[in-house]
């Protein structure tokens, strides 16, 4: 136990002595998360609209008046369809509307056609834009259509992206920092040759490994508390619908499995440069399979199975549930167990690979 504490203390002191590292960690947990949250909006905004009006009537103007900021830019008038086409082909205009000469005549007959040209190179935005315009036209029609769609977006009523992006950035920063810090503690010693000396000491290597990892977990946990307290709750006003204690526990479990990944990297890498390369190679699949970019149910079935191996998947789901979904904590037990199993497996591998001299 004394050896455990000694190693733990040594690592903490070594961390706080290297000012550069402390600054980088603090920066990532505060400023970086802040920038990512404030950075940009993913909703369709400022979509550029162009139109050709062969009618010079009132109705096209009325329709166009519905296309307004912040979703759309001021519609630009083109004199002929060729000009509009050229602008779309040069990707200056995303949505093009063409009003035929007999548009108004047909409108009163009830068979008017609004020609819509859509630059679909940005597929997602085009789809949302399309449904915006369909909505506008349908509302404009003002029929005796008596169905009202009551849409409720639960848990995040206004689709507030900054909150979400800040949380997402925090999760990836946490993962990155934990993996890199926990592998660097080992590889640094490996590089300078002191790791062999550590192993030669009359202390169980498992204790040394656990102490070293725990020291990094403590550092990261402090970072987490700073980040959630100041940035997430303070600046972005993130709701906390679950219990904060459960969040801390879940983070602890997650950092446990993430340091397991760090241990894995450390046991394979021989130098710090290799740590950088390896952690990038390992991190990418973990982040992509976590469901933060693509929902897991939309993935290829094989990838869905593989995503069970990504610890980030459980952590993201858990955090989303705790922060937004108001899930009872007991329903989250599976995430805790999954994270614990993943972490333990990685540690067992680490013990075998790095904890032995011969």
């Amino acid at each position, binding site marked *: 136990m004394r050896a455990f504490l000694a190693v733990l203390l040594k690592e903490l002191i070594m961390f706080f002595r290297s000012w550069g590292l402390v600054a980088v960690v603090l920066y990532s947990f505060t400023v970086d998360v802040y920038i990512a949250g404030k950075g940009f909006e993913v909703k369709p905004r400022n979509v550029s609209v162009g139109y050709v009006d062969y009618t010079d009537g009132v109705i096209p103007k009325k329709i166009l008046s519905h296309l307004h900021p912040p979703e759309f830019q001021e519609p630009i008038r083109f004199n002929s369809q060729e000009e509009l086409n050229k602008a779309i082909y040069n990707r200056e205009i995303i949505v093009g509307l063409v009003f035929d000469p007999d548009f108004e005549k047909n409108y009163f007959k009830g068979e008017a056609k609004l020609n819509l040209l859509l630059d679909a190179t940005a597929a997602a935005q085009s789809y949302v834009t399309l449904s915006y315009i369909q909505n506008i036209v349908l509302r404009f029609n003002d029929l005796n259509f008596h169905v009202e769609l009551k849409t409720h977006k639960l848990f995040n009523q206004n689709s507030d992206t900054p909150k979400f992006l800040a949380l997402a950035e925090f999760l990836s920063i946490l993962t990155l920092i934990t993996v890199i810090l926990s592998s660097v503690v080992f590889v640094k010693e490996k590089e300078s040759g002191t790791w062999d000396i550590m192993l030669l000491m009359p202390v169980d290597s498992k204790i040394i490994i656990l102490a070293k990892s725990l020291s990094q977990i403590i550092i990261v946990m402090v970072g987490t508390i700073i980040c959630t307290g100041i940035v997430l709750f303070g600046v972005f006003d993130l709701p906390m619908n679950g219990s904060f204690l459960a969040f801390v526990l879940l983070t602890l479990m997650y950092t446990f499995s993430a340091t397991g990944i760090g241990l894995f990297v450390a046991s394979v890498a021989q130098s710090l440069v290799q740590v950088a390369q390896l952690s990038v190679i390992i991190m990418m699949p973990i982040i992509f399979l976590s469901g933060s970019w693509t929902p897991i149910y939309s993935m290829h079935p094989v990838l869905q199975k593989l995503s069970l191996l990504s610890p980030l998947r459980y952590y993201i789901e858990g955090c989303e*549930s705790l922060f937004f979904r108001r899930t009872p904590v007991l329903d989250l037990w599976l995430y805790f167990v999954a994270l614990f199993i993943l972490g333990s497996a990685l540690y067992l591998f680490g013990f075998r690979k790095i904890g032995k001299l011969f």
Partner: protein
Amino acid sequence: MRTGVIKAYMLKEFTELVRTKLIILVYLLPSMILILFGYGIKMEVKDVRTVILDYDKSKLSYQIISAFEHSKYFSPEVLNISEKEALSLMKKAKIDMIVIIPESFEKNLLKGTISEIGIFIDASFPFRGLTIQSYAEGLLYNEASKLLSSDKTGLITVNQRNLFNQSMRDEDAIVPGLIGIVLLVAPAILSALVIVREKERGTIFNFYSSPVKKSEFVVAKLTPPFLLHSVNIFVMFLWATYLFKVPFRGSFLTYWLTSEVYVMISVGIGLLVSIVARAQIVAIVLTIIITVIPGFLYSGIIMPISAMKGEASIEAHIFPVMYFNHIIYDTFLIGQGFGSEKNLFYFVVLVMYALGLLSLGTLLMKKELR
């Protein structure tokens, strides 16, 4: 410039790249990024887990349900549970959307009183929630206008054409942009590494003290990354067209020429980084910061350039990614080639970038100890 010196130096570089196994990274990393991101970034949401609570059980409500069933975006289930139970399923993240069709929905509609369809969407991933909402509303409005075709006056139908990407595939929208990022990041890292490694090891003094000229050194150092990554241009093309089935509508020559110029730009960025950085790890991190972030933000993948305003628009015009991606999207999806003046102009801009960065790098490089 003496060709003999350059040849010898280049031979040394190639053997070193092979011996240090860096060559594996050269070919593994770009393909890996392309495949992972290509499959990974999906703006489109498929198979949304939907629960439909049908309290009406009429012909109309069945029509709505079958519309949901036939859409590839939803995988609906009609369940006989209470709203509360459905909500708790959503809280457990088991389902993403609840559609509630109220009692006597059809009757009210025929009578002409207003009836409501309730849609509840899990928006804890906001953009995903927004997309699901637009899918669901689009589908329901579509059904509605089918029903209303009897009703005549003052009806406008939207006659829409999706240009360049008719079926709105995500792969078509994202993969060409990814090529722009990969070809910017990978050559830059490699060319920065080959120079900074010598600095870190101290072998750079061989160059400092030898009569090799600066220009010869730059050519010899940068040609291997350039040539190796030129192969990647073709590899990326094959992945995009065969694996992701992105259509290719432009001329291959345009694609190839532009990409070569672009790799040159990337190599130039690596050269500039190598002037500043002294350790390999710094070089890697610095290159990633310089290339990846603008690569994503200003590539038009996340946000179309024409939708940017103010600062963002200015910054987008500063980084070379925008110009390259414009031409790349054109060759893949649009197919105007150099027939359009804008493409030609952007190509000239890229050539200027390449020349500017490379000559700036050669100029700033020091052949002495600082």
